[in-house]
């Protein structure tokens, strides 16, 4: 335990290109861009499939297959093929990791909305797009947010692996520590990544409280 305290109290670890702030920013950069790209792909696709019911089987099957892809393998293969000039090689496996949970939960969320609710919205004269935007998405939001949360946590956890192929991020402390038998650095890095994942988890919980309508989350009880 003392090692960990030494790691965090050593001022050298808090500044410079190898310092915790720099590594944290790099980590957030990989994770943030990957999550954003995954959302741009998976959210519209999930909404469209859930709303129209087209291509559902294909999307779910390929999402499940993508879940099985080992990120470490994908990462080393892509980096060997493309080189490490940019951060693109890291983004590809992380996006591949984040798309399935977002896609599947968005689709399931939209599809599982009570059909009576959907029919009532059409009956009130709303058009297809309006039904989706004003009724289906708000009702499905808890499940959509769950998908985003799972994706974000997995991306933040897995971005650690980027360090193995020589890129930055919090994984550097872990990988360098393992290579040089600097155990405090390894453990310290592991603690940092775990803390970051917990903060992401809590953050999404908070965002969800603000975004999800009280009627849907049943914080508002109708008497």
């Amino acid at each position, binding site marked *: 335990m003392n090692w960990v305290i030494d790691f965090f109290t050593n001022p050298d670890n808090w500044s410079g290109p190898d310092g915790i702030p720099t590594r944290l920013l790099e980590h957030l950069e990989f994770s943030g861009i990957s999550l954003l790209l995954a959302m741009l792909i998976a959210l519209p696709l999930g909404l469209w499939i859930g709303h129209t019911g087209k291509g559902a089987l294909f999307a779910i099957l390929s999402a*499940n*297959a993508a*879940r*099985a*892809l*080992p*990120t*470490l*393998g*994908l990462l*080393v*293969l892509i*980096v*060997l*093929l493309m080189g490490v000039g940019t951060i693109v090689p890291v983004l590809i496996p992380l996006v591949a990791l984040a798309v399935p949970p977002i896609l599947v939960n968005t689709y399931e969320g939209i599809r599982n909305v009570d059909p009576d609710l959907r029919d009532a919205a059409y009956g009130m004269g709303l058009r297809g797009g309006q039904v989706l935007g004003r009724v289906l998405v708000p009702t499905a939001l808890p499940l959509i947010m769950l998908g985003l949360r799972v994706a974000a*946590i997995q991306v*933040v*956890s*897995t971005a*650690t*692996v980027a360090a*193995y*192929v020589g890129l930055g991020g919090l*994984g550097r402390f*872990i*990988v360098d520590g*393992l290579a040089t038998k600097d155990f405090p650095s*390894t*453990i310290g*890095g*592991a*603690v940092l*990544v*775990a803390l970051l*994942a*917990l903060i*992401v*988890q809590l953050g999404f919980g908070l965002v969800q409280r603000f975004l999800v309508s009280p009627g849907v989350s049943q914080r508002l009880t109708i008497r």
Partner: protein
Amino acid sequence: MAEEPLVRWDWIGRNWPNIQGLLVDHVVMALVPVVIGLLIALPLGLAGARWRWLYQPTVGVMNVIYSLPSLAVFIVLIPITGLATRETVMVPLTFYAMAVLIPAVVDGLTSVPDHVRQSAVAMGFTPLRRLLRVELPIAVPVVLAGLRVAAVSSISLVSVGALVGRGGLGYLFIDGWQRQFYTPIVVGIVLTVALAAAADLLLVLAQRLLTPWSRARRTA
């Protein structure tokens, strides 16, 4: 480097015994945690479905455990379970499996319609028989859906263990990276995905065998 083919078939042929060993190691490290996780999740899930106040805190703890990065947990465990041992990889995977399976068991059990439960009571089923003959069979589809997720993610997570010296097929990624050689990496990815697909397929078949009524209803 540019002429290097993606797959060198002769390498696969020459190294097949090695690859097979890694495959077996991978299967053991991925699936033993899922089985143990299920064995622990069943009683905990039963308790959670029976006493609802117990369920929320359990899920909270499991969510926290699930959000811990696997590599971080492997490393923290090394002083306890040792470097490059199966246990270092299997202990966290057991917790990840539990995190998926406990909610699945609880959801499965609470999906049993009340009138079904009451019919069983009226027919004179004792609580234990009701659980074994009525409630658990009805919960099977939901539990198996959780089991599929747990098995597939366990299979894909094992390879991260290669960074701490024991990762089954993940060793092929490290090997390929260090020698700048595509073939082992491709073999590792293909076998991992094939393994996950096989496990998924087996669980789907198990569901068909365990819930014959769901097929009967569809054809009727």
